[in-house]
């Protein structure tokens, strides 16, 4: 089993309390950073680590930090994105509820690096129980001198707040999150200006995912170079994958980036294969917004080797064969899965969650959902299939925020890889419309 950097102690009794967490080496990174390093040195370590954002886009964290504007006399903020609403992604919630102090430790060290004196954890409102856990942990951190004024006598002050959101997927998009945190409707902002220049309350702000911030802890403890030794190429370190769908052992796995997909799905160490002895049909590797891949493509490259779970390997080949690692929401679908129904289900989600600001997303997501609904329920026409692709294209790249793409890609990719199944829904409408009906043929590869 690979090394675990974040979840090593996750099952230790009482690890959610300050005392036990501290006993297991907790808050060492804060001591090290505040007492022996300058903020820039902390940023440098994170750069060296090669850590890429774990929230979905995979942007290098150290580089993002170094873009932060530092005008004299204007406060800066670190905001932790704990919204986590992508269907299929449920790792942050787990991390926070089991290891609240890991996130808080990461927040302190990261805030120090960024020169932020007030930081926020924006958490999905439905996760009330996690909010309570975090609040308790934060008060413990205050009581032990790790938050508040003059932390560990270093002269550095930090206040940390948890803020529950109203529970809208769009509030996970970083600029919508900032709007929501400011008390407004969670509508994404046009960029530029980027948050690094004008973020929360128009101040320079870094928005990072829970897991990205947690990863700063081992990076500072062991050094960026050590961290970068794990993984493959530009995909360094470990990553949490939330595996769900038709797997024998769905769950949350911390893996070293670069484990072959096949091993992840089939080995007993991880997901233990497909349930009920069935065949795998397709995989969505990084949360519902990334393009779906049929089994054959996810398991084998053109050269025939196993595909690795890295940012690069999943996205190479562009969007013809490629997909993305995204947030690590790994959804496996067995041979009995109806791709049309599944696509409709995803589409329904994005339709429901579009904020409605820009015309292509507001109108297009609804349009796609309705066409998919018709196809699934036996009222579709052949032209509908191209119509779907065309509407997806009309949305992609033309919207304010990436929700447009998140809505368009799953539809476009499903048609690209499973067109014959969509056609079968037209030619065998009655049959296909039966609940639980599955296309009997094989998917045609692109």
């Amino acid at each position, binding site marked *: 089993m690979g090394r675990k950097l974040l979840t090593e102690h996750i099952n230790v009794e009482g690890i959610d309390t300050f005392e036990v967490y501290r006993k297991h080496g907790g808050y060492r990174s804060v001591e090290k950073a505040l007492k022996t390093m300058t903020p820039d040195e902390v940023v440098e370590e994170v750069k060296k680590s090669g850590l890429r954002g774990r929230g979905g886009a995979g942007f290098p964290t150290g580089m993002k930090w170094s873009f932060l504007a530092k005008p004299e006399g204007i406060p800066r903020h670190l905001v932790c994105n704990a919204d986590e609403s992508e269907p299929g992604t449920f790792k942050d919630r787990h991390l926070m509820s089991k290891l609240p102090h890991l996130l808080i430790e990461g927040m302190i060290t990261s805030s120090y690096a960024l020169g932020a004196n007030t930081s926020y954890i924006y958490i999905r409102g439905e996760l009330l129980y996690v909010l309570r856990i975090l609040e308790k942990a934060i008060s413990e951190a205050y009581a032990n001198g790790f938050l508040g004024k003059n932390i560990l006598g270093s002269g550095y002050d930090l206040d940390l707040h948890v803020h529950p959101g109203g529970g*809208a997927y*769009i509030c996970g998009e970083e600029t919508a999150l900032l709007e929501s945190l400011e008390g407004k*409707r969670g509508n994404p902002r*046009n960029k530029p200006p980027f948050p690094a220049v004008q973020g929360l309350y128009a101040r320079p702000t870094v928005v990072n995912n829970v897991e990205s911030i947690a990863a700063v802890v081992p990076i500072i403890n062991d050094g960026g170079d050590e961290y970068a030794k794990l993984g493959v190429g530009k995909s360094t370190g470990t990553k949490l994958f939330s595996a769900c769908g038709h797997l024998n052992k769905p769950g949350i796995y911390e893996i070293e980036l670069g484990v072959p997909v096949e091993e992840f799905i089939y080995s007993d160490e991880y997901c233990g294969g497909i349930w009920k002895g069935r065949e795998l049909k397709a995989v969505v590797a990084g949360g519902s917004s990334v393009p779906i891949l049929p089994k054959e493509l996810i398991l084998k490259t053109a050269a025939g080797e196993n595909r690795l779970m890295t940012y690069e390997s999943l996205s190479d080949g562009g969007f013809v064969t490629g997909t993305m690692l995204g947030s690590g929401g790994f959804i496996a679908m067995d041979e009995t899965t109806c791709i049309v129904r599944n696509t409709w289900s995803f589409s329904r989600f994005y*339709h*429901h*969650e*579009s*904020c*409605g*600001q*820009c*015309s*292509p997303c*507001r*109108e*297009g*997501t*609804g*349009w796609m959902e*309705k*066409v998919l609904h*018709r196809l699934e329920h036996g009222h579709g026409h052949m032209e509908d299939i191209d*119509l779907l692709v065309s509407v997806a294209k*009309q949305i992609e*790249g*033309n*919207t*304010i925020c990436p929700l447009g793409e998140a809505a368009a890609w799953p539809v476009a990719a499903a048609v690209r890889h499973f067109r014959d199944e969509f056609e079968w829904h037209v030619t065998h409408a009655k049959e296909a419309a039966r609940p639980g009906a599955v296309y009997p043929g094989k998917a045609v590869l692109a």
Partner: protein
Amino acid sequence: MAKITFDGIEIEVPDGTTIMNAARTVGGSIVPPAMCYYTPLKGSGGKCRACLVKVTAGSTKDPRPMPKLVPSCITSVQDGMVVENTVNQQVLDVRKGIVEMLLINHPLDCPVCDQAGECDLQNFAFEHGVSTTRYTEERRTFDKIDIGPLIQLHMTRCILCYRCVYTANQVAGDRVHGVLGRGDAAEIGTYIENIIDQDFSGNVIDVCPVGALTDKTWRFKSRVWFTKPVNAHRDCPKCSGNVLLWYKGKDVLRITARKDEYGEVKEWICNECRFEKKETSDWTIEGPAHIDRSSVISANHYELPVLNHSVVADLPESTQRELEKNPPLKLGS
């Protein structure tokens, strides 16, 4: 100053100017269409995506093309930028798509809509859209909301450009309306039924690019192209008092703020001027207004010579008597 090339035309504009406004300094058909952007409203723009253009070179310093189309209304020019609008097929295709999207949930009830003849969406669709639709699904409908005696809300026609929200925020105090719900279930409305009657709230009617917000005191009285816009002013303690009176015969059917060639209000007017001063005697007439944007209105060539006393004095006596009995307009002082 920044030099940019827009559809092959070289334009020099002050730094910080948006691509849209740079194009507007040239004017004419190269100007990208705008459904949500509105110069007098801070923060507007970027939503409808009607104005997307292709930037084929970012700047002299960084001549790389921008990967996605950019909203010209909120993207600032950079020295050396090269922009394609009417000459770029991708841009034109996307625009067609935007029209199609906007018309999904906007009924084509132009025959009974009070905005007909001065509707930005009508113009946008005419210039950039196609005449057929691929949309066969059910379209959205709404329960009627009564927002008071002055303004009629037809939510079905709203294209969620947010202009009225910014107007209410920035021009009329005490905003009671905004966007409720999200996605294509989003709607303009008042949270818990409310009346919109704050002073200056009438300006939401003028900024609405479609017929979603119309003037209850003028509804169904006339098609706009049968009326004559006349510049007029009055001494108003609240606003500039500079307005347009829309005449049918001798009656003032409607009063609006004056707009520029892009349909943008030049000076906000108060509700008293807009809704309560419907007599010619309330106003000092300046003369017929020049309307060059909405083709349907200007097609009628209604512009009359400006009447002034010295001209009238030279007319034959019978004509003078007739004018006195039946003054077409209140004469300028």
